[in-house]
């Protein structure tokens, strides 16, 4: 077969977010691979400069849905450093607790997505079912399932009650048991191993050279974890081990993530045990004195860095965000060398890409909007009913009945 170039994205079932990959294929084999990022730009860095610090906490939280706590924590850490705020211990512990719960939910989500990418939908359904446990815990602790909104400058917004601690421990026990089961599945189910091992090889040298972060790097033997190397929040007081692996492939990345899940459960138990009493936040000034700070946070996907520069007003002078995916995306081309098209989804998924994080910058405003004809929902609805009626299908009576039923 001659060489064909197929587009994967910007809209494609393998990608949960719009991003464009051009793949040149010779038969089933990938010969060339190109990435075009930037489809998800929302102008967040610029928007941060136009909002107050307290508004920015929620804005940075919305850089990414899955690692929302990672971004807001990194941001408030930088601001707290500039303002010289000493956050109370209990606040730091709660921040760490939410961070670890978030890692659990993110890694379980990843496992499900990976299952889906290799056509193993049962794994997807099971992991996402179990992920509900941690999502419910989040809703219980913070008041929302995704954008937790627990961080504020100077601490956290909600305390953890003894009843909640009991709930968390119960949830963690259940999750630990399930995770053990998934480790067993991942390391013994033939079809899973066949699809994962030897796929997306990234050697230790390449990973170092291209700057892979997080589980992607750790599965290539890079022993680097911000939580240990540059402790923030309460990580300095908690014992944990950094999970690394030398498989260098997708299988290794799966094992690293599953291993990190087990570590996270241990850490959550420690946090709950060691959590001191006291206030959870101190009051932060509205105006932050001039200064700059560089904050690092180990998000579930890898190292997430924020740089904040303050100029003494209520609004920051500059906020710079580097999400882990941007550091990892460049390794994908290396991983896909001489692989098959069928490996592409899982290799891309294996870095746990989050393109919303990656592209956060500029509001892409369509300069031609004045010409576009925007159809409102009602118009579309009416049009479809009309179209069907013309073709002899009329559901209006049935619809009325159904509506009656719903009421």
């Amino acid at each position, binding site marked *: 077969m001659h060489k064909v170039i197929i587009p994967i994205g910007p809209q*494609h079932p393998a990608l949960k977010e719009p991003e464009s990959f051009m793949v040149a294929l010779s038969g089933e084999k990938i010969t060339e691979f190109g990435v075009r990022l930037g489809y998800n730009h929302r102008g967040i860095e610029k928007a941060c400069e136009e909002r107050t610090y307290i508004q920015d906490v929620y804005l940075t939280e919305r850089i990414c849905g899955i690692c929302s706590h990672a971004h807001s924590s990194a941001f408030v850490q930088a601001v707290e450093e500039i303002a010289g705020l000493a956050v109370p211990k209990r606040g730091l512990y709660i921040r760490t607790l939410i961070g670890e719960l978030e890692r659990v939910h993110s890694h379980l989500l990843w496992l499900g997505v990976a299952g889906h*990418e290799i056509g193993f939908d049962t794994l997807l359904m099971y992991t996402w079912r179990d992920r509900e446990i941690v999502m419910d815990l989040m809703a219980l602790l913070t008041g929302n399932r995704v954008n937790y909104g627990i961080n504020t400058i100077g601490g956290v917004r909600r305390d953890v009650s003894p009843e909640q601690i009991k709930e968390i421990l119960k949830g963690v026990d259940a999750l630990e048991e399930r995770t053990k089961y998934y480790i067993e599945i991942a390391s013994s189910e033939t079809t899973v191993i*066949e*699809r994962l091992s030897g796929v997306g090889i990234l050697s230790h040298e390449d990973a170092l050279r291209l700057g892979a972060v997080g589980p992607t790097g750790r599965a290539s033997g890079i022993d680097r974890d911000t939580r240990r190397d540059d402790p923030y929040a309460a990580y300095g007081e908690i014992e944990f081990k950094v999970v690394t692996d030398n498989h260098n492939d997708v299988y290794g990345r799966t094992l690293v993530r599953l291993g990190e899940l087990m570590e996270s459960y241990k850490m959550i138990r420690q946090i709950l045990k060691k959590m001191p009493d006291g206030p959870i936040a101190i009051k932060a000034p509205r105006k932050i004195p001039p200064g700059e700070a560089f904050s690092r946070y180990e998000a579930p996907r890898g190292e997430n860095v924020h740089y904040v520069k303050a100029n003494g007003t209520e609004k920051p002078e500059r906020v710079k965000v580097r999400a882990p995916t941007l550091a990892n995306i460049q390794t994908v081309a290396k991983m896909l060398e001489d692989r*098959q098209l069928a490996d592409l989804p899982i290799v891309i998924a294996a870095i746990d890409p989050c393109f919303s994080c990656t592209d956060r910058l500029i509001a892409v405003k369509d300069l031609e909007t004045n010409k576009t004809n925007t159809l409102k929902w009602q118009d579309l609805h009416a049009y479809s009913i009309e179209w069907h009626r013309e073709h002899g*299908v009329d559901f209006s009576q049935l619809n009325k009945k159904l509506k009656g039923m719903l009421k």
Partner: protein
Amino acid sequence: MLAQLFYILIFPGLLFLSVFGLAAEFFDRKLYARLQNRVGPPWFQPLADFIKLVGKEDIIPDDANPNMFKLMPIFALTATATAFFYIPLWGMNAYFHFNGDVIVVLYLLTIPTLTFFLGGWYSRSLYSQIGAVRSLTQLFAYEVPLFMSILATALLADTWSLSEMALFYTVHPWYWVFNLIGLAIALITLLGKLEKVPFDIPEAETEIVAGTFTEYSGRLFGIFKIAIDVEAIVGASLLAAVFLPFGLTLHPALGFLLFIIKVLSIVAVLSVLRTIFARLRIDQMMIFCWKYLAPLAFLQLLISLILKGVLIR
């Protein structure tokens, strides 16, 4: 004449097949959902899907060959529905039978795959074409073990007619037990024929969107869907007739019930199988079929030949 029209259009022809096909699809989806600990769709979901598709606009890509594009779904449905007439459902006789109808049924069951190929190829979309090529590649992998395992049963019964095979297995009631390896092979290859996990490579959603069917919409897609449902029924009935030929002398009503149970249990086994595996890559699938299934099918052939030499004189 009228009776034949009734056979073709109503029972056991198109109407019965479509209804049973939709019912089996529901059964499959519901079971699949329950295996995954989900609630699953309501009973009318496949029908509602079909009605929705029929109500939608047919969009034919500019580059596609419109005649081939439109013809292929109809071909697929016709071929599978025709195959059904040669399979004895209950009792010993199919509606039409002659010596050699096994081959005709197998041939007719290959046609849908060919239509997937042609339909995808003439869509001129890259995803469709890759899917089309994959479905053809896959065909060469699973077809041989499937044919050989069915050939083994035919050898044992010493006939090329499905109805006569039914007669043979009624006379020698427990002989079907010797074909269990063949049944296992046939079940696995049927997954490939129906393009289900782990062999759903031609329509692997995360790689090539929907493969062959990427460009299909509306009525044409609806017909394809029905054709696939019917193919599942026909494939399952063929397996039931060839590998599970018992209870054929029962009263017609009971026999019909038994037939439904046989087909649904085969569908259920397929559902379970597609729940517990990940999708294979096309090269892995080829290796699996040629390295494991084909030798096993040979073993089955050997067993049949030995049995024939030793037991039946």
